[in-house]
């Protein structure tokens, strides 16, 4: 059961999505994406489609109070081989404050335009976030739960301009997806490169489609797990004092346009949070770009 202070935030998130102009094109939708929270696969957004996703992390560091961190993600398929994303982030810590913590801009590109046994994707991201940011979109270096226990008034004074790069390797083997991400992150100001990893595997619970429209059927449920953590930094390339998490995943394609994901993550080391609950809610708007680029028939 979720702690009570989280309910107002969750209510606001759900209200936000309830007020979105959903029926832009309600008759369809696709969802190639896997229910990963940290790991990326080689599935990119379909060209012209826009996906809006709310990702909420709920956790409590040992030396602090509970918090809820929210990342709202706008993901757009520029090309079949190029996806771009904007994240807007914030957090609320009961008995402290609620604040906007920054933004990220990210691009993923498939350099090889064929399906291979292992498909590489290049990922580059610019982050402009404050020290109060608590979204766990990646774990690198010596990230620790103590970083998340600093009072907001102090943590927000630090602004971080960071570049994150990933080498994403991903394979679809029959109904399985296996993905490996190698992460290198650099504070553009003054810190050494930090490294991390994310590994994931998912599979739909049924591989054949139903001949009838259905919502709560096994083909729309995807289960899996991801393992992620830090690998130290350039000055201290060691697993000592690094955080690692194991997180089961469950995804539900509730309607053709809406996907729900849930993941209880478990810290595997003393520097990791004991538990982190993640909830994702995504809507996809098909051929969103064609509303603005109709002359060219939308994205192509």
């Amino acid at each position, binding site marked *: 059961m979720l702690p009570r202070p989280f309910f107002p935030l969750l209510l606001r998130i759900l209200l936000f999505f309830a007020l979105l102009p959903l029926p832009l094109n309600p008759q369809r939708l696709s969802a*190639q994406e896997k229910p990963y929270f940290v790991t990326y696969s080689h599935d990119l957004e379909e060209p012209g489609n826009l996906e809006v996703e709310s990702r909420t992390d709920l956790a409590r560091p040992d030396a602090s109070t509970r918090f809820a961190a929210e990342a709202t993600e706008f993901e757009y398929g520029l*090309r079949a081989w190029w996806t771009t994303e904007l994240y807007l982030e914030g957090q609320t810590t009961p008995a402290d404050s609620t604040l906007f913590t920054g933004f990220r801009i990210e691009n993923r590109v498939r*350099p090889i335009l064929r399906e291979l046994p292992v498909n590489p994707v*290049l990922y580059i991201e610019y982050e402009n976030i404050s020290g109060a940011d608590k979204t766990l979109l990646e774990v690198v270096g010596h990230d620790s739960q103590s970083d998340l226990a600093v009072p907001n008034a102090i943590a927000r004074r630090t602004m971080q301009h960071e570049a994150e790069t990933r080498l994403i390797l991903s394979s679809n083997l029959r109904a399985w997806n296996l993905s490996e991400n190698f992460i290198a992150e650099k504070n553009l100001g003054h810190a050494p490169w930090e490294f991390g990893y994310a590994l994931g595997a998912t599979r739909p619970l049924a591989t054949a489609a139903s001949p009838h429209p259905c919502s709560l059927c096994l083909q729309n449920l995807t289960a899996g797990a991801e393992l992620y953590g830090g690998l130290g930094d350039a000055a201290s390339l060691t697993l000592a004092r690094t955080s690692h998490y194991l997180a089961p995943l469950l995804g539900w394609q509730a309607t053709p346009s809406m996907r729900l994901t849930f993941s209880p993550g478990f810290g595997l080391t003393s520097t990791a949070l004991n538990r982190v609950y993640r909830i994702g809610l995504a809507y996809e708007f098909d051929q969103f770009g064609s509303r603005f680029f109709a002359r060219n*028939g939308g994205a192509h």
Partner: protein
Amino acid sequence: MRRFTLTVLIFLAAALAFAAGPATNPVDRWQRVPPRDHARSNPLAATPETIAAGSQLYRTHCAQCHGPAALGDGRKHPSLRTDHVRSASDGDLEWFLRQGDLAHGMPSWSSLPPTQRWQLIAYLRSLP
């Protein structure tokens, strides 16, 4: 900061150089299919259930581009009721779904389980 900007520019230039492949003549498309894939036939019988399941998949994944009747939009998104598609073997179509044509906007559908790709092909075969 300047070094980072340069790195980003090199990254994007390299990505564009890799991704901008030569135009593909649709006639040549099936000739690129490996013989082993070309020879494959649909393991699913074309029963009404299989076709209906393929129809559901088509509506979910394909209709947004190729149209509800698979006639395309006359511009970027081609019709699937053409002699070119009919001339393809089951294996050609499965290979193409799996590979996509990323340079020309067709995503790879390797993320669909193989059974669903074959259901989709059964539906495409049922189109007049």
